[in-house]
């Protein structure tokens, strides 16, 4: 149920952003600050998503085998590995860390 509500809400918000310029702004530029905000927000939010998904456990900060996976992912990214390798490396490293 929550997912469906999110689906509808996010679709509306997303479409509003996508269509704003073609339908409403008609070629006028965005205010400069809005452009900057739109550029920096993903960096902050994505970084937050990294740490929360890697360290959160039921509302607490917990360092577990997921960190091993994150380290493997970072290594793979540094080595410019393709996306599949990055994700598989993370999962595999975590699974191995749990098995030990």
């Amino acid at each position: 149920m929550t997912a469906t509500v999110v689906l509808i809400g996010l679709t509306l918000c997303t479409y509003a952003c996508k269509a704003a310029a073609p339908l409403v702004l008609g070629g006028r530029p965005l205010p400069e600050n809005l452009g900057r905000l739109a550029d920096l927000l993903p960096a902050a939010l994505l970084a937050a998503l990294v740490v929360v998904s890697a360290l959160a456990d039921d509302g607490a900060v917990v360092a577990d085998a997921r960190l091993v996976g994150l380290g493997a992912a970072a290594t793979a990214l540094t080595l410019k590995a393709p996306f599949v390798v990055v994700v598989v490396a993370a999962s595999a490293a975590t699974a191995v860390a749990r098995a030990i």
Partner: protein
Amino acid sequence: MAPFGVAFGIASTEAGLAVWQASAFSVLVFTGSAQFAAVGVIGDGGTAISAVAAGALLNLRSLAFGVVMASALQGPWWKRAVWSQLMIDESTAVGSAQSDLRLRRYGYVWGGIAVFVAWNISTLVGAAALSSSGDLVADWGIDAAIPAVFLALVWPRLADRGQLRSALLGAVIALAVLPIAPPGVPILAAGIGVVAGWRDQSGATAAADDNQPAEEPAL
């Protein structure tokens, strides 16, 4: 790009979504990082509002894409409305590489359609594949795949100093707030992290290609 879609399908079912819901996200929202963020918050037990807010904030940059493409997307309002659905990193990159307005539109539309098809097929594959599996978390470390996806998404952005600073501050804020806030809220609070990068922002759109996170930025 296809593996990315498969990852989304998997992440969705892992977060408790039905296959049709995962597909619907990819059809209707059609933006990778926003979809992952929203589904991530849902999976953590966050409220619908925080999930929508997280996804919407990540999608703000679609406004900038629209401004880039608006002059090439002239026509009756209903056509512009349909074309707008394809407004993502990839289609804007392909479109804006052309100088002739008509070619810009063709590049944008066909690039967008290609990504749309690949993205949706791969989402369906990922979502359907997972729904029949066993304990993926303990045995296969799938719960580490989600942070890896987000890391891959943010990685190209870290080359830009303003974004790097915003990312670091955002991460710190999220962790600080985590023990005291309901699910989803730490992500939104991390948005404040942009203040760390504000002065460094050159104004150029350093947007990463969020459908192919391990490759060069599209714009």
